């Protein structure tokens, strides 16, 4: 076994030697410094490689040749070895990061850094409480001194405040040790643990003082003002060390002391940790200084780990799984936080907003993105798995208050972290390039990132045993990152080929029932739309990796078997779609709204998954029809989660924003494909909670009304939009409302109609969006009143849009009619006359916006500015052509679709006898409703009815005298500034008078108020940080006393 | 018995010194008072059979710490006189 004392000796000898040899040459002392650091890494890794760890017995080493209670024991088991490997590697990287600084600075700084590491190592190793005190002092004093690396007034003040707090904590610690020794007669932690808990009040106070000393050192809210100042003003290299090495060592020491404590202390500490997590994140919301923001984030993360270590002990959870959660959170924070501090040191910008300089340096931006996403808890980073396990533990044990605090805190954390990412992505012309990029700093950053990724992959594959298929999205992302330099078209064809191959290998013929339907929607739908991206001349860096990742994760939704796999895939999907939206030019705010709603949804989904019975391995989720039935609570959580993804009324406000601001081609995918993931999820929930929902009835009733209102208001909002994409976005929302309505019926016909509409919606919405993408590309505007008369310039696009709106509006002969027919009949068949009425009204409103779409864009007078526009590029036309053909196909032969859907649905809900297919004819003969629909016949008739006049018109048209647009003989006088007087501007003003009160943005207002209030609460809370060191001391005392009184420690 | 009385007397003196250290206006006096507290403490250590501690406290606690305080005060006084005048 590697003797841990070598670690101590290495640091000590190095620290003592350095000032001495420095007389000769600074290079020698630096050499010794790095040698000592490397040796410490080597020693801890060597220990890790030894296989003599046994699960329970700790490997201990004693000093001075005496046994445990007499001498000081050091534990060097598996946990210590792992943590020390991380800590010492971080030490080496921090040393590297500071290389330039240390070469300039007086030699003491080198010794100080070595001794800081000695303190951390000792604190982790020691099994003796007083020895722990000594190493804690070494760690603290070295840190205090190193804060002096920056000699600004603020750094000095912060360092002094830190010393005050630290001094106070060590006083508490020492008093505690004194009395604990008085009561137990030992200082060895293990002997002490074996003695059990004594009942004397004095003893409990002693323990309380000891543990509170460590808690204070861990910077809990609100007794942590000093720590924030330190993070804000210390040298970035030192701040990184404090937030990683110091925190790690202290947390481990805290963990070591936990077995000493009486059980009643645990809820107190857990509460303190959770409060620290939630409120630190809350107060961080209004923080603009990057360093201080990182400080808040650090204290929050530490609080969360304290909570995990103490709060889960009461649950039926093994010690190792608790540790696993804590380790996952810790490791992520460890690497991400150090990386962020280092980045802060590289770019030297104070406010978070000014981090937009990163947008000009793609490498640093990528690193920044990785750190932020890791901290937010996205897969594949360990924090993701930790949070999943944590939610599982909390929800599984009914700890609802803790769970809500955890999820709310995580959401707040996501707000400020992702907002920051938004700032960094935003291009700002005034920003200068980051010119000075010191190599050592860059090496530290890169190496840290690589390590984090390696650890993440190790955990993902070795601990959670995820099948390789689940990791395809990530692999595809990485593969496309590598070939990202290729031209767009090459990448496009590679992507199409890859996805087609993947679909063929893993999905073709392997999907059953509704799976095959969603297979076509999710994979096929996106596959065709990849063409749309290929018209770009410039190499849009990062687009294809994300796009491919999104498509792979969409497909994986159909392959996911376990809950973890499903949620992982869901998060991959959320992540990639968020980043794709963020690519939009002005999409920062929209993307933030999107991801916040998505994350809330994801948290609800996660909670719901925890509450639902476990899934089977090797059976895809969508097939678990009758095998699993979940209860109502799980169904409600899951359902709300998926409804957020769908953009149902009330939680829809992310939808128009992000649809509008995302890149046009991607909006098409979002609307047509991505929203179907929500549809898929909702359907799964309904399937799995069918029994409970049918028995209850109330929930599905509410869901139906929600769908109806979504359909109605979506249509209504669409009418009054000037922005063509926003119009289409609301239109999508409306359509999804119909789907919800259909599903909510819980009847065979209802589900068939919902699925059929979902299927149709893919094609017609993608068709319209693709065509409009071309229009926006050519005209350069999204405002409809700035377009007009494009029918001559872009005839193919016109035809696409025309086809699309006919389909959307539900007019025969195209497929939309069929879907609408299904919806109405199923509603009426179930007796939901009011909903049917509302839905019908919504369809009527839909005519208005669809009319506006085709009229203002393609008909009417052409705008002078758009005299020279051309037809859309061929790459946009290809998908349109495909979709038109498909729409024609399903319109002619609807039974090729409806029949399989019906038989798929009948796996879950028995098909009633009165529904039947004969040839092309669908017949309904229910007790309440009769009807039939023959799509083929309708098509034939319509074609006849329209075709003959069309031929005649064309013939007649040849003889019409054509007038040029600006030939004023036939026109009235044109006003100078026509935009606002143009009929297309505020086109339905008269309807607005009648219906406008319905669309006052009540819901948006509500969400804005939520945001505002949260921010003002954060602002109010932050005033406790007065900046005065003495007040901070008072905070610490009050903190200790209040917990003492609340907890009734006496 | 004598030891107890002596201890009580020392304790009272030392507490008075402590209160004086807090309340006095002059920092120098406070420093000296805190030195006296340490010195009294080291006598108390002797009374409770801890000669090692007594020696160390006398040397470090009352001796060196006071010197360090005085040096710091001198530093600041020096600067004050050069800057403020």
């Amino acid at each position: 076994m590697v003797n841990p004392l070598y670690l101590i000796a290495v640091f000590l000898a190095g620290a003592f030697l350095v000032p001495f040899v420095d007389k000769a040459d600074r290079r020698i002392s630096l050499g010794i410094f790095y040698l000592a650091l490397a040796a410490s890494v080597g020693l801890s890794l060597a220990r890790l490689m030894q296989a003599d760890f046994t699960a329970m017995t700790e490997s201990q080493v004693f000093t001075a040749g005496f046994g445990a209670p007499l001498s000081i024991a050091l534990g060097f088991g598996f946990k210590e070895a792992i943590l020390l490997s991380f800590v010492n590697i971080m030490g080496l990287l921090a040393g590297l990061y500071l290389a330039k600084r240390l070469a300039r600075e007086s030699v003491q700084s080198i010794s100080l850094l070595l001794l800081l590491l000695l303190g951390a190592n000792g604190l982790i190793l020691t099994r003796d409480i007083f020895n722990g005190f000594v190493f804690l002092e070494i760690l603290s004093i070295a840190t205090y001194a190193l804060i002096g690396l920056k000699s600004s007034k603020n750094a000095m003040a912060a360092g002094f405040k830190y010393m005050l707090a630290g001094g106070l904590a060590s006083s508490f610690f020492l008093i505690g040790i004194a009395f604990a020794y008085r009561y137990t007669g030992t200082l060895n932690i293990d002997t002490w643990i074996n003695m059990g808990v004594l009942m004397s009040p004095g003893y409990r106070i002693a323990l309380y003082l000891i543990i509170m000393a460590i808690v204070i050192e861990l910077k809990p809210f609100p007794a942590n003002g000093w720590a924030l100042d330190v993070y804000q003003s210390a040298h970035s290299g030192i701040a990184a060390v404090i937030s990683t090495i110091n925190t790690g060592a202290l947390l481990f020491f805290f963990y070591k002391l936990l077995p000493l404590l009486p059980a009643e202390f645990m809820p107190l500490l857990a509460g303190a940790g959770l409060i620290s997590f939630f409120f630190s994140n809350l107060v961080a919301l209004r923080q603009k200084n990057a360093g201080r923001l990182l400080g808040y984030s650090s204290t929050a993360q530490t609080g969360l780990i304290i909570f995990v270590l103490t709060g889960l002990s009461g649950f039926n959870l093994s010690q190792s799984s608790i540790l696993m959660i804590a380790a996952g959170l810790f490791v992520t924070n460890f690497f991400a936080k150090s990386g962020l501090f280092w980045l802060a040191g590289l770019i030297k910008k104070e406010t978070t907003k000014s981090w937009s300089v990163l947008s000009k340096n793609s490498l640093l931006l990528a690193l920044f993105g990785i750190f932020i996403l890791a901290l937010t808890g996205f897969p594949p980073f360990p924090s993701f798995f930790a949070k999943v396990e944590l939610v599982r533990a909390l929800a599984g044990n009914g700890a609802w208050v803790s769970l809500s605090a955890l999820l709310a805190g995580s959401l707040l954390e996501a707000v400020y972290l992702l907002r920051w990412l938004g700032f960094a992505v935003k291009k700002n012309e005034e920003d200068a390039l980051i010119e000075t990029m010191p190599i050592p700093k860059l090496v530290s950053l890169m190496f840290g990132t690589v390590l984090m990724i390696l650890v993440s992959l190790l955990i993902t594959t070795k601990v959670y045993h995820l099948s390789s298929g689940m990791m395809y999205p990530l692999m595809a992302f990485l593969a496309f990152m590598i070939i990202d330099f290729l031209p767009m078209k090459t990448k496009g064809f590679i992507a199409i080929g890859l996805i087609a191959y993947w679909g063929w290998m893993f999905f073709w013929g392997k999907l059953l029932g509704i799976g095959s339907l969603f297979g076509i929607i999710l994979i096929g739908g996106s596959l065709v739309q990849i063409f749309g991206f290929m018209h770009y001349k410039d190499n849009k860096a990062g687009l294809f990796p994300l796009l491919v990742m999104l498509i792979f994760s969409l497909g994986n939704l159909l392959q996911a078997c376990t809950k973890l796999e499903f949620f992982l895939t869901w998060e991959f999907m959320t992540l990639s779609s968020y980043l794709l939206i963020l690519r939009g030019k002005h999409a920062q705010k929209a993307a933030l709204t999107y991801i916040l709603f998505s994350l809330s949804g994801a948290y609800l989904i996660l909670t719901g998954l925890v509450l639902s019975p476990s899934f089977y391995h090797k059976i895809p989720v969508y097939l678990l029809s009758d095998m699993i039935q979940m209860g109502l609570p799980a169904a409600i959580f899951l359902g709300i989660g998926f409804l957020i993804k769908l953009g149902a009324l009330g939680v829809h406000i992310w939808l128009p924003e992000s649809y509008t601001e995302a890149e046009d081609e991607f909006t098409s995918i979002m609307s047509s494909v991505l929203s179907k993931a929500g549809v898929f999820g909702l359907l799964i929930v309904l399937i799995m909670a069918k029994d409970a929902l049918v028995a209850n009835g109330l929930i599905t009733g509410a869901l139906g009304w929600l769908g109806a209102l979504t359909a109605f208001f979506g249509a209504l909002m669409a009418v009054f939009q000037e922005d063509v994409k926003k119009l289409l976005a609301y239109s999508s929302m409306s359509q999804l409302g119909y789907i919800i309505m259909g599903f909510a019926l819980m009847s065979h016909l209802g589900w068939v109609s919902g699925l059929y509409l979902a299927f149709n919606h893919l094609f017609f919405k993608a068709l319209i969006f693709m065509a409009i993408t071309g229009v926006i590309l050519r005209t350069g505007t999204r405002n409809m009143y700035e377009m007009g008369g494009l029918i001559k310039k872009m005839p193919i696009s016109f035809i696409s849009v025309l086809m699309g709106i006919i389909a959307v509006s539900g007019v025969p002969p195209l497929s939309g009619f069929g879907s609408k027919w299904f919806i109405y009949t199923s509603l009426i068949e179930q007796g939901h006359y009011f909903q049917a009425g509302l839905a019908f009204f919504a369809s009527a409103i839909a005519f208005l916006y669809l009319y506006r779409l085709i009229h203002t864009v393609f008909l009417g007078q052409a705008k002078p500015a758009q005299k020279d526009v051309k037809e859309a590029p061929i790459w946009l036309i290809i998908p349109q052509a495909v979709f038109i053909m498909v729409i024609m196909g399903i319109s002619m032969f609807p039974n090729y679709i409806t029949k399989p859907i019906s038989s798929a649905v009948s796996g879950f809900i028995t098909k009633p006898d009165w529904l039947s297919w004969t040839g092309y004819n669908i017949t309904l003969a229910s007790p309440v409703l009769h009807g039939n629909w023959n799509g083929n016949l309708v098509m034939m008739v319509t074609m006849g009815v329209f075709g003959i006049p069309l031929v005649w018109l064309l013939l007649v048209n040849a003889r019409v005298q054509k007038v040029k647009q600006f030939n004023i003989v036939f026109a009235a006088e044109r006003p100078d500034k026509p935009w606002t007087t143009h009929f297309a501007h505020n086109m339905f003003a008269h309807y607005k008078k009648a219906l406008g009160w319905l669309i006052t943005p009540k819901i948006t207002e509500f969400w804005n108020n939520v945001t505002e209030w949260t921010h003002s609460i954060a602002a109010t809370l932050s005033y406790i940080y007065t900046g005065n060191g003495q007040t901070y001391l008072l905070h610490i005392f009050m903190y200790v006393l209040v917990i003492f009184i609340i907890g009734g420690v006496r | 018995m004598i030891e107890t009385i002596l201890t009580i007397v020392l304790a009272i003196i030392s507490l008075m010194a402590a209160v004086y250290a807090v309340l006095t206006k002059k920092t120098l006096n406070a420093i000296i008072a805190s030195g006296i507290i340490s010195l009294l403490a080291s006598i108390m250590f002797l009374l409770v059979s801890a000669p090692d501690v007594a020696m160390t406290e006398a040397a470090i606690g009352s001796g060196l710490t006071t010197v360090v305080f005085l040096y710091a005060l001198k530093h600041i006084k020096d600067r004050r006189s050069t800057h403020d005048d």
Partner: protein
Amino acid sequence: MIKYLLIALVLIGMGWLFLPLATEYFTPTQLNNLAANYVYGSAADLNMPNAVTSVVVTYRGLDTLGEVTVLFLATAGVGFFLKRKNSIKSKRRHGSEILKSGADLLAPLIILFGIYIFTHGHLTPGGGFPGGVVLASAFLLLLMAQEHFTFSHSVIQFTESLSGIAYVFIGLAGLLLLGLNHFLDPRWLNLGQWGKLFSAGAVPLIYSFIGLKVGSEMSGMLDSLQSDGGDE
């Protein structure tokens, strides 16, 4: 005003928190197990009359190593703060003639006394820490008395580094000569005869190095404290 109220509350609260610690106090009549083992072992295993020293240097030797390190840290920290590069030596007040000659006379005696204290730490009260401080006080005397005290830097640093490293290596010697669990075990040297100067294994050696190290560290600290950091 509220603040003063809070402070008063905090003081009362702390008193209340400490109260059980005092009221529950009872005078023990005999040593607890651990202490008894230490006292017995000090004589039986280590051949050392001063039980405190045996705890400090041997049983809990790692603490003491840490303690020396803390002092080193403080010195380094103070030096790091106050001795920036290009520091200008401040004008020091001249010591009087009497002080000068007195210092010249006294300093060697004080140093000798300090050495006595730390070499006899295993036999009598005292040891490395007070001994080291006595050494430093000699240094302080010279510092005050002499105008340009040139002894300082390199010698101090040399002593400090070397004694520190020697301490670590004596610890490692136990490890290498006696085995895995014997870091800082002084018994690789002969335990010698009860009550003599050269007894108790390497303890006198360790305490000497501690004394030297503490002495040089404190001298270094005083040196940095008296030198003006220079203005920036």
